[in-house]
């Protein structure tokens, strides 16, 4: 079986002659390996629905365009999570600039497209959290980025990120326990 290097740093010796072809693995494998994580990140920021799906598409299209040049990327999943986070936040800002009559995301937000596994409601609950908590959960808890990196991305401090993620998760836990 193929050993996917995304989980840890993979280093290609500099100056090695690989001919015209890159040593990048099949792109399909990246989609299969990281598709779920990227979708979780998009959904945590944007809620389940077409916007999250579009952010997912844009993330993987960006990766596909640069694919042969991504050899230098040590942690592909982190790269994808950062791109997905940026794409999702762009959509979020665009939404905020042209406010459609959005009801303060109550407990009864749009039902997710599929509830086949009975867990889709969690995304609705995440969507109801304050933005800072959603971003902390998206980047750090779901996307696996470190507190420090998450803090840089959302313009915060590592300690605030840690707290926001914990607060958000506590709210979710309370909701599901209650």
């Amino acid at each position: 079986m193929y050993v996917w290097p995304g989980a840890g740093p993979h280093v290609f010796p500099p100056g090695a002659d690989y001919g015209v072809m890159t040593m990048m693995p099949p792109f399909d494998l990246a989609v299969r390996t990281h598709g779920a994580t990227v979708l979780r990140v998009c959904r945590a920021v944007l809620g389940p629905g077409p916007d999250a799906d579009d952010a997912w598409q844009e993330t993987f299209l960006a990766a596909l365009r640069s694919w042969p040049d991504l050899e230098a990327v040590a942690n592909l999943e982190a790269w994808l999570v950062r791109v997905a986070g940026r794409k999702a936040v762009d959509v979020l800002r665009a939404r905020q600039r042209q406010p459609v009559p959005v009801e303060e995301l109550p407990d009864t937000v749009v039902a997710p497209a599929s509830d086949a596994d009975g867990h889709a409601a969690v995304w609705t609950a995440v969507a109801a959290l304050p933005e800072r908590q959603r971003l902390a959960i998206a980047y750090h808890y779901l996307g696996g980025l470190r507190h420090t990196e998450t803090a840089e991305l959302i313009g915060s401090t590592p300690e605030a990120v840690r707290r926001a993620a914990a607060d958000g998760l506590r709210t979710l836990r309370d909701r599901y326990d209650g």
Partner: protein
Amino acid sequence: MTTPSPLGPGSVPAFSVSEAELAGLAGRLAHRAEDEALLEVAYRILESPVGRLLLAATERGLVRVAFEREGFDEVLSGLAQRLGPRILHAPWKLDAAAAELEEYFAGHRRQFGVPLDFALSHGFRRAVQQRLPDIGYGRTMSYRQVAELLDRPGAVRAVGTACATNPLPVVVPCHRVLRSDGGLGGYLGGLEAKETLLGLEGRAVAA
């Protein structure tokens, strides 16, 4: 596909995403990749009497047929290195090839018409592989006869290698090449697959 909760069981539920949703997203992505000319190799999986087959195509044509025992992930990473890493599951790009193979396995087709891309083989091997479709449906030749057909009577072993490295088995019928004594010789898909194909074409072969 579940993220274990650090808060203990029964607390935060899994942040689940379903396989069906991911497959739908990946399908849309492959269509967009095709629209933007970012798709170097398309592939799909086909069920067959010789097990699951992976079919891969470039813009030029069918470039690879692989047996499951070769390991589909290995096959795809080989294609990434040799043809380009922008490989996606895009089954519609292989509809014609899949339909012809299904007709062949159902006994309704004797030769293949889809365009073939021999980019994965070179030199004498490619020359051998390109001549193999001349061995008609239900007929067989020995490795020696194929060498003679190519005016290289001494190249029997090289013909064997060409058959063993055929990137397009079934469609390029290396299964119709046997040992001079009538023995099966080898087959990338396993001897059982070779027997199945020859049996399908009406040849009973002593193993």
